[in-house]
């Protein structure tokens, strides 16, 4: 079984993002970028399925600018076999990403597509569902456990108030939650080996894909909260909460 993993390059989760001066975008100059954390869980999940003998090949795909080479190398160092970069002039929105991904899926014919449940930059949580719809494949989103057996994927999903288990016929698309696993630490030899693994670059123009997109009018920091007070005792706290009328 072949697994395709879709990954994205995003501002590192520890960095506090700022809007650009014109307020049209997010400042990305000299900002540390990393693989989207949920996508790292997806790569780890795929590599573990390969190590367990369930999968035969793990292919990672990124849709975005040439800079995505570094996150693809990261995924290769984690154990993916080869990588594909659909090189676009700018970062694309979920619907466009899903359409490029569909084209790659049709070329590669994997049995399972894995991706993170959301990217921590746009927080959209849309791409997996969209590619699944375009392929007319079943989907399981926010997965915390995946078992493959008898041509089916048994997936535990994190839902509001608990968990739900679905059985999907393969091929299928699964978006993963942080709970799926703990991504491995990459050792230096793995990093060196990853440099020998192939990254195939396909210009976006080859696909002739058009997708409607949201127009971004403005990006700004949310209104700041008023400065708080440090209190000295529980009695002061209770008095403050009573004054705010939030406790009786």
């Amino acid at each position, binding site marked *: 079984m072949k697994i395709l993993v879709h990954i994205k390059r995003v501002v590192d*989760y520890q960095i*506090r*993002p700022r809007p650009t001066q014109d307020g049209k975008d*997010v400042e990305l100059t000299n900002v540390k970028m990393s693989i989207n954390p949920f996508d790292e869980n997806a790569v780890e999940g795929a590599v573990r399925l390969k190590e367990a003998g369930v999968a035969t090949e793990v292919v990672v795909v990124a849709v975005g600018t040439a800079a995505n080479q570094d996150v693809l190398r990261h995924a290769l160092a984690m154990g993916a076999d080869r990588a594909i970069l659909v090189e676009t002039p700018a970062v694309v929105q*979920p*619907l466009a990403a*899903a359409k490029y991904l569909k084209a790659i899926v049709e070329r590669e014919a994997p049995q399972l597509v894995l991706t993170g449940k*959301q990217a*921590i*930059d*746009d*927080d*959209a949580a*849309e*791409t997996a*569902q969209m*590619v*699944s*719809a*375009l392929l007319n*494949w*079943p*989907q399981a989103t*926010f997965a915390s456990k995946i078992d493959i057996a008898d041509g089916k994927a*048994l997936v535990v*999903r*994190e*839902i*509001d*108030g*608990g*968990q*739900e*288990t*679905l*059985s*999907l*016929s393969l091929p*299928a698309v699964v978006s993963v939650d*942080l709970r799926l696993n703990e991504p491995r630490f990459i050792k230096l030899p793995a990093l060196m080996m990853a440099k020998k693994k192939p990254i195939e670059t396909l210009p976006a123009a080859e696909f002739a894909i058009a997708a*409607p997109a*949201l127009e*971004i009018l*403005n*990006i*700004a*920091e*949310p209104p700041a*909260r*008023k400065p*708080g*007070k440090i209190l000295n005792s*529980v*009695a002061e*706290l*209770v008095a403050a*909460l009573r004054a*705010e009328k*939030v*406790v009786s």
Partner: protein
Amino acid sequence: MSILVIAELDSHGVKAATRSAITAASQLGEEVHLLLAGSGVEGIAAQVASINGLSKILLADAAEYAHGIAENLTPLLVQLAPSYSAIVAAATSFGKNLLPRAAALLDVAMVSEVIQIIDATTFVRPMYAGNLNATVKAPAGLRILTIRPTVFEAAAAEGGSAVVENIAAAAYEGDTGKATWVSRDLVQLDRPELATARVVISGGRSLGSAEGFSATLTPLADVLGAAIGATRAAVDAGMAPNDSQVGQTGTVVAPELYIAFGVSGAAQHVGGIKDSKVIVAVNHDADAPIFQVADYGLVADLFTVIPELTAALKG
């Protein structure tokens, strides 16, 4: 044209989050209809018809609509879409699972987790764990939105008188059979639901253990009638159930009072609480970032503060 809101069901009927979606839909300035799709839901149609702000209920009662399976509900949405100018659902795990699937088939750039409606095509949505807000304009034509339920007040359960139209027979496309529901394991709570609680208290990893977590926080939660939340660290350490996680990847809350005990205040957590009316932080580390967003801070040991606070509020 009208706006179609997708109802999310639980064992009690329609979730409060759906009534928030109805409020948001009303702000788009057109008639609001509700799609009530499920199995054996005919009985709740009358109850739903009295929700304020609705003019019509589309009742789709069929076995394959049970459990909210996206693969089965999407064909129904695609079929109904041409009669509507917008499709709206709450940004819960149900809405987030379903709407992007429909959006792709309808070739619509959807807007997820809307926190403000500026006009019928312009919306504000959070990005980067709530550190930034983007104002976006949706292309002309059908709009597909999920709205953040904590920022739109739930429409009143009474006062409306919508007509009920049965559409199941017309819309039936059969179970796609691609995804089969196996089981659902819901955490039984005898306290308010996290997303809609008026008061939320939460704990971090410093509570030590699952027993400690529950034993320390429960008495205070009982006094306050509060829901109990947790940080990712506490959840990962097995101290609290997954669905109690508050933050970017868990539940976003906006209660009247949020009290964080032993929570350092990572951006991913703060993004999920910063719309709370009053935030209180109790932490022994005076430099913890949580104090930057707290209205009231107490630099103290949570194990002494919690019993004192519980006693003071009881009396």
